[in-house]
Protein backbone atom coordinates (compact mmCIF):
# COMPACT_ATOMS: atom_id res chain seq x y z
CA UNK A 1 0.00 0.00 0.00
CA UNK A 2 1.47 3.31 -1.10
CA UNK A 3 0.43 6.72 0.13
CA UNK A 4 1.78 10.23 -0.24
CA UNK A 5 3.00 11.46 3.15
CA UNK A 6 2.59 14.99 4.43
CA UNK A 7 4.43 15.18 7.78
CA UNK A 8 3.80 18.89 8.49
CA UNK A 9 6.13 21.27 10.32
CA UNK A 10 5.55 20.04 13.89
CA UNK A 11 6.71 16.57 12.99
CA UNK A 12 10.07 17.92 11.84
CA UNK A 13 11.15 18.91 15.33
CA UNK A 14 8.78 19.64 18.22
CA UNK A 15 6.82 16.42 17.55
CA UNK A 16 9.65 14.38 16.07
CA UNK A 17 8.50 11.46 18.23
CA UNK A 18 5.31 11.34 16.15
CA UNK A 19 7.20 11.28 12.85
CA UNK A 20 9.66 8.64 14.08
CA UNK A 21 6.93 6.37 15.40
CA UNK A 22 4.69 6.89 12.34
CA UNK A 23 7.48 5.84 10.03
CA UNK A 24 8.52 2.87 12.19
CA UNK A 25 4.97 1.56 12.57
CA UNK A 26 4.11 2.15 8.90
CA UNK A 27 7.20 0.25 7.84
CA UNK A 28 6.30 -2.71 10.02
CA UNK A 29 2.71 -2.75 8.72
CA UNK A 30 3.82 -2.63 5.09
CA UNK A 31 2.50 0.88 4.51
CA UNK A 32 4.77 2.71 2.08
CA UNK A 33 4.83 6.42 2.88
CA UNK A 34 6.26 8.61 0.14
CA UNK A 35 6.96 12.07 1.52
CA UNK A 36 5.69 14.86 -0.74
CA UNK A 37 8.79 16.45 -2.22
CA UNK A 38 9.34 20.02 -0.98
CA UNK A 39 6.00 20.30 0.84
CA UNK A 40 5.25 23.61 2.57
CA UNK A 41 3.55 24.59 5.84
CA UNK A 42 -0.28 24.31 5.80
CA UNK A 43 -0.65 27.68 7.55
CA UNK A 44 -2.49 26.09 10.48
CA UNK A 45 -5.34 28.39 11.51
CA UNK A 46 -3.22 31.50 11.04
CA UNK A 47 -3.60 32.10 7.30
CA UNK A 48 -7.38 31.58 7.35
CA UNK A 49 -7.58 34.36 9.94
CA UNK A 50 -5.98 36.83 7.56
CA UNK A 51 -6.45 35.92 3.91
CA UNK A 52 -8.56 32.99 2.80
CA UNK A 53 -7.40 32.80 -0.82
CA UNK A 54 -3.74 32.76 0.18
CA UNK A 55 -4.58 30.17 2.85
CA UNK A 56 -6.17 27.93 0.23
CA UNK A 57 -3.42 28.45 -2.36
CA UNK A 58 -0.63 27.67 0.11
CA UNK A 59 -2.40 24.44 1.09
CA UNK A 60 -3.28 23.52 -2.50
CA UNK A 61 0.40 23.63 -3.49
CA UNK A 62 0.89 20.50 -1.37
CA UNK A 63 -2.03 18.71 -3.03
CA UNK A 64 -0.65 19.67 -6.44
CA UNK A 65 2.76 18.24 -5.52
CA UNK A 66 1.39 14.75 -4.80
CA UNK A 67 2.98 12.38 -7.33
CA UNK A 68 0.59 11.64 -10.21
CA UNK A 69 0.68 7.88 -9.59
CA UNK A 70 -0.55 8.32 -6.00
CA UNK A 71 -4.17 9.14 -5.18
CA UNK A 72 -4.16 9.32 -1.38
CA UNK A 73 -2.27 11.53 1.04
CA UNK A 74 -1.76 10.80 4.74
CA UNK A 75 -1.33 13.57 7.29
CA UNK A 76 -0.71 12.65 10.95
CA UNK A 77 -1.23 16.21 12.27
CA UNK A 78 -4.82 17.27 12.91
CA UNK A 79 -4.45 20.81 11.56
CA UNK A 80 -2.64 19.66 8.41
CA UNK A 81 -5.23 16.93 7.86
CA UNK A 82 -8.10 19.36 8.27
CA UNK A 83 -6.55 21.99 6.01
CA UNK A 84 -5.76 19.61 3.15
CA UNK A 85 -9.23 18.11 3.41
CA UNK A 86 -10.91 21.49 3.72
CA UNK A 87 -9.31 22.94 0.60
CA UNK A 88 -10.02 19.84 -1.46
CA UNK A 89 -13.65 19.97 -0.26
CA UNK A 90 -14.00 23.71 -0.95
CA UNK A 91 -12.62 23.21 -4.45
CA UNK A 92 -15.06 20.36 -5.14
CA UNK A 93 -18.05 22.32 -3.86
CA UNK A 94 -17.13 25.65 -5.42
CA UNK A 95 -15.75 25.47 -8.98
CA UNK A 96 -15.31 29.26 -9.19
CA UNK A 97 -13.08 29.17 -6.11
CA UNK A 98 -11.25 26.15 -7.51
CA UNK A 99 -10.49 28.18 -10.66
CA UNK A 100 -9.17 31.01 -8.57
CA UNK A 101 -6.95 28.71 -6.53
CA UNK A 102 -5.65 27.21 -9.77
CA UNK A 103 -4.85 30.69 -11.08
CA UNK A 104 -2.63 31.12 -8.02
CA UNK A 105 -1.03 27.70 -8.51
CA UNK A 106 -0.43 28.53 -12.18
CA UNK A 107 1.87 31.34 -11.03
CA UNK A 108 4.07 28.51 -9.74
CA UNK A 109 3.35 26.30 -12.78
CA UNK A 110 1.22 23.92 -10.78
CA UNK A 111 -2.35 22.68 -11.08
CA UNK A 112 -4.67 20.64 -8.90
CA UNK A 113 -7.88 18.93 -9.98
CA UNK A 114 -10.36 19.03 -7.10
CA UNK A 115 -10.98 15.56 -5.72
CA UNK A 116 -7.92 13.97 -7.34
CA UNK A 117 -6.25 13.17 -4.04
CA UNK A 118 -8.11 11.58 -1.14
CA UNK A 119 -6.97 13.09 2.16
CA UNK A 120 -6.68 10.53 4.96
CA UNK A 121 -5.77 10.63 8.59
CA UNK A 122 -3.29 8.04 9.71
CA UNK A 123 -5.60 6.57 12.36
CA UNK A 124 -8.32 5.85 9.80
CA UNK A 125 -5.76 4.30 7.50
CA UNK A 126 -4.38 1.95 10.18
CA UNK A 127 -7.86 1.13 11.51
CA UNK A 128 -9.57 0.60 8.16
CA UNK A 129 -6.97 -0.27 5.52
CA UNK A 130 -4.82 -2.47 7.74
CA UNK A 131 -7.58 -3.71 10.05
CA UNK A 132 -7.96 -5.76 13.18
CA UNK A 133 -6.54 -9.08 12.06
CA UNK A 134 -3.31 -7.71 10.61
CA UNK A 135 -2.78 -5.53 13.68
CA UNK A 136 -3.32 -8.41 16.12
CA UNK A 137 -0.90 -10.52 14.09
CA UNK A 138 1.93 -8.09 14.75
CA UNK A 139 1.57 -7.84 18.52
CA UNK A 140 4.57 -9.28 20.38
CA UNK A 141 4.18 -7.23 23.58
CA UNK A 142 0.50 -7.16 24.56
CA UNK A 143 -0.34 -4.03 26.50
CA UNK A 144 -2.33 -5.96 29.10
CA UNK A 145 -3.02 -3.96 32.24
CA UNK A 146 -2.00 -0.62 30.77
CA UNK A 147 -4.81 1.89 31.22
CA UNK A 148 -4.92 4.35 28.36
CA UNK A 149 -7.09 7.41 27.71
CA UNK A 150 -7.62 7.85 23.97
CA UNK A 151 -7.65 11.54 23.13
CA UNK A 152 -8.89 12.53 19.66
CA UNK A 153 -9.06 16.32 19.96
CA UNK A 154 -11.04 18.30 17.44
CA UNK A 155 -9.93 18.60 13.88
CA UNK A 156 -9.54 14.95 12.99
CA UNK A 157 -13.09 14.10 13.98
CA UNK A 158 -14.78 17.41 13.08
CA UNK A 159 -16.14 18.58 10.71
CA UNK A 160 -15.01 16.26 7.91
CA UNK A 161 -14.76 12.80 9.43
CA UNK A 162 -17.57 10.74 7.96
CA UNK A 163 -16.30 7.47 9.33
CA UNK A 164 -16.35 7.99 13.10
CA UNK A 165 -18.56 9.77 15.60
CA UNK A 166 -17.64 13.48 15.79
CA UNK A 167 -18.18 13.70 19.55
CA UNK A 168 -17.60 10.18 20.87
CA UNK A 169 -15.24 8.62 18.33
CA UNK A 170 -14.14 5.02 18.86
CA UNK A 171 -11.50 4.08 16.29
CA UNK A 172 -8.50 4.67 18.52
CA UNK A 173 -10.26 2.92 21.42
CA UNK A 174 -10.79 -0.12 19.19
CA UNK A 175 -7.24 -0.07 17.88
CA UNK A 176 -5.86 0.02 21.41
CA UNK A 177 -8.12 -2.86 22.44
CA UNK A 178 -6.71 -4.89 19.53
CA UNK A 179 -3.20 -4.52 20.97
CA UNK A 180 -4.35 -5.51 24.44
CA UNK A 181 -4.53 -2.15 26.25
CA UNK A 182 -7.23 -1.39 28.77
CA UNK A 183 -9.08 1.60 27.34
CA UNK A 184 -10.59 3.77 30.07
CA UNK A 185 -13.72 5.84 29.68
CA UNK A 186 -12.71 9.34 28.67
CA UNK A 187 -15.85 11.43 28.13
CA UNK A 188 -13.85 14.49 27.03
CA UNK A 189 -11.98 12.50 24.38
CA UNK A 190 -12.99 14.88 21.57
CA UNK A 191 -12.87 18.13 23.54
CA UNK A 192 -10.50 20.98 22.74
CA UNK A 193 -6.95 21.28 24.15
CA UNK A 194 -7.02 25.04 23.65
CA UNK A 195 -5.06 25.07 20.40
CA UNK A 196 -3.11 28.29 20.05
CA UNK A 197 -4.92 29.86 23.04
CA UNK A 198 -1.85 28.99 25.15
CA UNK A 199 -0.12 31.76 23.19
CA UNK A 200 -2.94 34.28 23.43
CA UNK A 201 -4.84 33.86 26.67
CA UNK A 202 -3.42 31.47 29.21
CA UNK A 203 -6.31 31.32 31.74
CA UNK A 204 -8.71 30.00 29.07
CA UNK A 205 -6.15 27.62 27.61
CA UNK A 206 -5.05 26.27 30.98
CA UNK A 207 -8.65 25.58 32.00
CA UNK A 208 -9.21 23.51 28.85
CA UNK A 209 -6.00 21.56 29.49
CA UNK A 210 -6.94 21.05 33.16
CA UNK A 211 -10.30 19.51 32.25
CA UNK A 212 -8.58 16.92 30.08
CA UNK A 213 -5.93 16.01 32.66
CA UNK A 214 -8.53 15.91 35.42
CA UNK A 215 -10.82 13.61 33.46
CA UNK A 216 -7.98 11.22 32.60
CA UNK A 217 -6.96 11.08 36.24
CA UNK A 218 -10.53 10.49 37.42
CA UNK A 219 -10.61 7.40 35.26
CA UNK A 220 -7.16 6.33 36.52
CA UNK A 221 -5.48 6.42 33.12
CA UNK A 222 -1.76 5.60 33.15
CA UNK A 223 -1.25 7.84 30.17
CA UNK A 224 -3.03 9.87 27.50
CA UNK A 225 -2.62 9.00 23.83
CA UNK A 226 -2.67 11.84 21.32
CA UNK A 227 -2.95 11.96 17.58
CA UNK A 228 -2.23 15.67 17.11
CA UNK A 229 1.05 17.56 17.78
CA UNK A 230 -0.75 20.59 19.23
CA UNK A 231 -2.71 18.45 21.70
CA UNK A 232 0.47 16.65 22.75
CA UNK A 233 2.37 19.92 23.18
CA UNK A 234 -0.37 21.58 25.20
CA UNK A 235 -0.98 18.63 27.52
CA UNK A 236 2.67 17.68 27.95
CA UNK A 237 4.77 20.84 27.77
CA UNK A 238 2.22 22.99 29.62
CA UNK A 239 1.40 20.41 32.30
CA UNK A 240 3.75 22.00 34.84
CA UNK A 241 2.46 25.49 34.12
CA UNK A 242 -1.10 24.22 34.52
CA UNK A 243 -0.12 22.62 37.84
CA UNK A 244 1.30 25.87 39.18
CA UNK A 245 -1.67 27.84 37.89
CA UNK A 246 -4.29 25.66 39.60
CA UNK A 247 -2.21 24.23 42.47
CA UNK A 248 -2.64 20.72 41.09
CA UNK A 249 -0.06 17.98 40.72
CA UNK A 250 -0.83 16.09 37.55
CA UNK A 251 2.01 13.90 36.29
CA UNK A 252 0.37 12.18 33.36
CA UNK A 253 2.57 11.08 30.47
CA UNK A 254 1.28 12.23 27.08
CA UNK A 255 2.46 10.25 24.07
CA UNK A 256 1.43 9.67 20.46
CA UNK A 257 -0.71 6.63 19.69
CA UNK A 258 1.85 5.42 17.17
CA UNK A 259 4.50 5.28 19.91
CA UNK A 260 2.39 2.89 21.93
CA UNK A 261 1.51 0.82 18.86
CA UNK A 262 5.24 0.51 18.26
CA UNK A 263 5.73 -0.75 21.83
CA UNK A 264 3.08 -3.41 21.25
CA UNK A 265 4.81 -4.39 18.02
CA UNK A 266 8.11 -4.81 19.89
CA UNK A 267 9.92 -1.95 18.17
CA UNK A 268 12.94 -0.25 19.74
CA UNK A 269 11.70 2.46 22.10
CA UNK A 270 14.44 4.86 21.07
CA UNK A 271 13.33 4.60 17.46
CA UNK A 272 9.79 5.44 18.58
CA UNK A 273 10.94 8.76 20.05
CA UNK A 274 10.51 7.92 23.73
CA UNK A 275 12.38 10.33 25.98
CA UNK A 276 11.23 13.40 24.08
CA UNK A 277 8.08 13.80 26.15
CA UNK A 278 8.44 16.14 29.12
CA UNK A 279 6.45 14.02 31.59
CA UNK A 280 8.38 10.76 31.22
CA UNK A 281 6.37 7.80 29.93
CA UNK A 282 8.96 5.07 30.34
CA UNK A 283 8.55 4.51 34.14
CA UNK A 284 4.85 3.66 33.88
CA UNK A 285 5.41 1.50 30.81
CA UNK A 286 8.16 -0.46 32.55
CA UNK A 287 6.03 -0.88 35.64
CA UNK A 288 2.95 -2.08 33.80
CA UNK A 289 4.42 -4.09 30.97
CA UNK A 290 6.19 -7.20 32.12
CA UNK A 291 6.71 -10.13 29.76
CA UNK A 292 8.27 -10.26 27.29
CA UNK A 293 10.92 -7.80 28.41
CA UNK A 294 10.63 -4.39 26.80
CA UNK A 295 13.42 -3.67 24.38
CA UNK A 296 15.20 -0.52 25.43
Amino acid sequence: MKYAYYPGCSLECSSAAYDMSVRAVADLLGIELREIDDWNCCGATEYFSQDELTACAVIARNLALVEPQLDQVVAPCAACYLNLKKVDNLMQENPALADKINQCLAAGRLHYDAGRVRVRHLLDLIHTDIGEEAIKDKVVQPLTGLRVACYYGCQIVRPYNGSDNPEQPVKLDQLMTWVGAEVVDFPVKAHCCGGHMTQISEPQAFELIRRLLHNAQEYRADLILCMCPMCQLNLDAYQNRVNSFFGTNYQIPIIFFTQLLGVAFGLDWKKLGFGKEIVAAEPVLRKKLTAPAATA
Partner: protein
Amino acid sequence: MVGTTLELRGSPFLHEIIQEVPGGERIVRCLQCGTCGGSCPNGADMQYTPRTIFAMIAANEREKVLKANTMWFCVSCYFCVSRCPQKIPITDIMYGLKRIAIRERAYQDTDAPALAKTFTDLLDKYGRSFELGLASRYYLFNRPVAMLKMGPMGLSMFTRGRMSLVPTKIKNIEQLQSIIRKARELGGTRP
Protein backbone atom coordinates in the same frame (compact mmCIF):
# COMPACT_ATOMS: atom_id res chain seq x y z
CA MET B 1 -34.29 22.27 6.95
CA VAL B 2 -35.83 25.68 7.51
CA GLY B 3 -35.20 28.36 4.88
CA THR B 4 -34.44 32.00 5.51
CA THR B 5 -34.94 32.97 9.12
CA LEU B 6 -32.70 36.02 9.57
CA GLU B 7 -33.95 39.16 7.85
CA LEU B 8 -31.85 39.54 4.70
CA ARG B 9 -32.69 42.96 3.33
CA GLY B 10 -31.98 45.47 6.04
CA SER B 11 -28.35 44.62 6.76
CA PRO B 12 -25.45 45.45 4.45
CA PHE B 13 -23.18 43.72 6.97
CA LEU B 14 -25.07 40.45 6.48
CA HIS B 15 -24.39 40.69 2.73
CA GLU B 16 -20.76 41.48 3.43
CA ILE B 17 -20.38 38.32 5.54
CA ILE B 18 -22.03 36.24 2.83
CA GLN B 19 -19.51 37.65 0.33
CA GLU B 20 -16.57 37.14 2.65
CA VAL B 21 -17.12 33.50 3.60
CA PRO B 22 -17.52 30.62 1.14
CA GLY B 23 -20.73 28.90 2.27
CA GLY B 24 -21.55 31.97 4.35
CA GLU B 25 -25.00 32.33 2.75
CA ARG B 26 -26.20 29.64 5.14
CA ILE B 27 -26.07 32.20 7.97
CA VAL B 28 -29.60 33.30 6.99
CA ARG B 29 -30.93 29.93 8.15
CA CYS B 30 -29.96 30.61 11.78
CA LEU B 31 -32.83 29.66 14.09
CA GLN B 32 -31.32 31.44 17.11
CA CYS B 33 -31.37 28.14 19.01
CA GLY B 34 -28.08 28.80 20.83
CA THR B 35 -26.62 25.33 20.36
CA CYS B 36 -23.39 26.97 19.13
CA GLY B 37 -22.71 28.99 22.27
CA GLY B 38 -23.73 26.10 24.52
CA SER B 39 -21.29 23.78 22.73
CA CYS B 40 -18.38 26.22 22.71
CA PRO B 41 -15.48 25.47 25.09
CA ASN B 42 -14.90 29.22 25.38
CA GLY B 43 -18.55 30.32 25.19
CA ALA B 44 -18.56 31.52 28.79
CA ASP B 45 -15.73 33.97 28.10
CA MET B 46 -17.20 35.40 24.91
CA GLN B 47 -18.82 38.83 25.08
CA TYR B 48 -21.42 37.54 22.64
CA THR B 49 -21.93 33.90 21.67
CA PRO B 50 -22.10 33.04 17.95
CA ARG B 51 -25.92 33.04 18.12
CA THR B 52 -25.91 36.62 19.40
CA ILE B 53 -23.26 37.62 16.86
CA PHE B 54 -25.48 36.33 14.04
CA ALA B 55 -28.43 38.34 15.33
CA MET B 56 -26.18 41.40 15.57
CA ILE B 57 -24.97 40.85 12.00
CA ALA B 58 -28.59 40.72 10.86
CA ALA B 59 -29.19 43.95 12.78
CA ASN B 60 -26.18 45.54 11.02
CA GLU B 61 -24.29 46.14 14.28
CA ARG B 62 -21.03 46.14 12.35
CA GLU B 63 -18.79 48.11 14.68
CA LYS B 64 -19.83 46.24 17.82
CA VAL B 65 -19.33 42.87 16.15
CA LEU B 66 -15.87 43.73 14.84
CA LYS B 67 -14.77 44.92 18.28
CA ALA B 68 -16.13 41.86 20.07
CA ASN B 69 -13.81 39.24 21.54
CA THR B 70 -15.99 36.42 20.20
CA MET B 71 -14.00 35.41 17.13
CA TRP B 72 -10.67 35.63 18.96
CA PHE B 73 -11.94 33.14 21.50
CA CYS B 74 -12.90 30.69 18.76
CA VAL B 75 -10.35 27.85 18.85
CA SER B 76 -11.54 26.17 15.62
CA CYS B 77 -12.74 23.05 17.44
CA TYR B 78 -15.81 22.80 15.15
CA PHE B 79 -18.07 21.57 17.96
CA CYS B 80 -20.68 24.19 17.03
CA VAL B 81 -20.42 23.28 13.34
CA SER B 82 -21.00 19.59 13.94
CA ARG B 83 -24.00 20.34 16.16
CA CYS B 84 -25.65 23.20 14.26
CA PRO B 85 -29.06 21.94 13.11
CA GLN B 86 -28.90 24.34 10.16
CA LYS B 87 -25.39 23.38 9.04
CA ILE B 88 -24.06 26.92 9.26
CA PRO B 89 -20.25 27.03 8.82
CA ILE B 90 -19.85 28.91 12.11
CA THR B 91 -16.09 28.46 12.44
CA ASP B 92 -15.59 29.79 8.89
CA ILE B 93 -17.78 32.79 9.71
CA MET B 94 -15.55 33.42 12.75
CA TYR B 95 -12.54 33.34 10.40
CA GLY B 96 -14.34 35.81 8.14
CA LEU B 97 -14.92 38.16 11.08
CA LYS B 98 -11.25 37.87 12.06
CA ARG B 99 -10.21 38.79 8.51
CA ILE B 100 -12.44 41.87 8.34
CA ALA B 101 -11.37 43.00 11.82
CA ILE B 102 -7.68 42.56 10.89
CA ARG B 103 -8.03 44.35 7.54
CA GLU B 104 -9.63 47.33 9.27
CA ARG B 105 -7.60 47.06 12.49
CA ALA B 106 -10.92 47.11 14.30
CA TYR B 107 -9.98 44.48 16.90
CA GLN B 108 -9.40 45.27 20.58
CA ASP B 109 -7.47 43.65 23.42
CA THR B 110 -6.12 40.64 21.61
CA ASP B 111 -2.68 39.45 20.55
CA ALA B 112 -4.16 36.92 18.14
CA PRO B 113 -3.67 39.09 15.02
CA ALA B 114 0.00 39.61 15.92
CA LEU B 115 0.49 35.87 16.42
CA ALA B 116 -1.16 35.14 13.07
CA LYS B 117 0.94 37.75 11.23
CA THR B 118 4.21 36.56 12.80
CA PHE B 119 3.34 32.98 11.88
CA THR B 120 2.51 33.67 8.24
CA ASP B 121 5.47 36.07 7.76
CA LEU B 122 7.75 33.14 8.62
CA LEU B 123 5.77 30.86 6.32
CA ASP B 124 6.12 33.37 3.45
CA LYS B 125 9.85 33.63 4.04
CA TYR B 126 10.82 29.99 4.58
CA GLY B 127 7.86 27.89 3.44
CA ARG B 128 7.83 26.15 6.81
CA SER B 129 6.86 27.26 10.25
CA PHE B 130 9.72 28.05 12.63
CA GLU B 131 8.65 27.65 16.23
CA LEU B 132 11.56 29.35 17.96
CA GLY B 133 11.40 32.30 15.57
CA LEU B 134 7.66 32.52 16.07
CA ALA B 135 7.83 32.37 19.86
CA SER B 136 10.73 34.81 20.23
CA ARG B 137 9.38 37.41 17.80
CA TYR B 138 5.80 37.17 18.99
CA TYR B 139 6.59 37.29 22.71
CA LEU B 140 9.30 39.93 22.42
CA PHE B 141 7.11 42.39 20.56
CA ASN B 142 3.76 41.58 22.16
CA ARG B 143 4.17 39.90 25.52
CA PRO B 144 7.68 40.55 26.88
CA VAL B 145 6.72 39.80 30.49
CA ALA B 146 5.09 36.48 29.61
CA MET B 147 8.28 35.57 27.77
CA LEU B 148 10.08 35.07 31.08
CA LYS B 149 7.58 32.44 32.18
CA MET B 150 8.13 30.58 28.92
CA GLY B 151 11.85 30.20 29.62
CA PRO B 152 11.86 26.94 31.64
CA MET B 153 9.45 25.30 29.23
CA GLY B 154 11.51 26.37 26.22
CA LEU B 155 14.60 24.97 27.86
CA SER B 156 13.02 21.60 28.57
CA MET B 157 11.82 21.45 24.94
CA PHE B 158 15.31 22.30 23.78
CA THR B 159 17.10 19.71 25.93
CA ARG B 160 14.78 17.02 24.54
CA GLY B 161 15.62 17.99 20.99
CA ARG B 162 12.19 19.47 20.39
CA MET B 163 13.22 22.99 19.46
CA SER B 164 15.30 23.85 16.44
CA LEU B 165 17.54 26.90 16.52
CA VAL B 166 17.45 27.39 12.76
CA PRO B 167 14.53 27.48 10.33
CA THR B 168 14.05 24.96 7.53
CA LYS B 169 13.62 26.53 4.12
CA ILE B 170 11.89 24.68 1.31
CA LYS B 171 13.87 24.23 -1.94
CA ASN B 172 11.46 25.97 -4.26
CA ILE B 173 10.60 28.96 -2.08
CA GLU B 174 10.34 31.16 -5.21
CA GLN B 175 7.50 28.98 -6.48
CA LEU B 176 5.61 29.30 -3.18
CA GLN B 177 6.20 33.04 -3.09
CA SER B 178 4.90 33.44 -6.67
CA ILE B 179 1.74 31.58 -5.66
CA ILE B 180 1.32 33.78 -2.60
CA ARG B 181 1.89 36.97 -4.63
CA LYS B 182 -0.74 35.89 -7.15
CA ALA B 183 -3.22 35.12 -4.37
CA ARG B 184 -2.69 38.58 -2.84
CA GLU B 185 -3.10 40.17 -6.26
CA LEU B 186 -6.42 38.38 -6.83
CA GLY B 187 -7.49 39.67 -3.42
CA GLY B 188 -9.79 37.22 -1.67
CA THR B 189 -12.10 34.37 -2.47
CA ARG B 190 -15.11 36.23 -3.78
CA PRO B 191 -15.77 35.76 -7.51
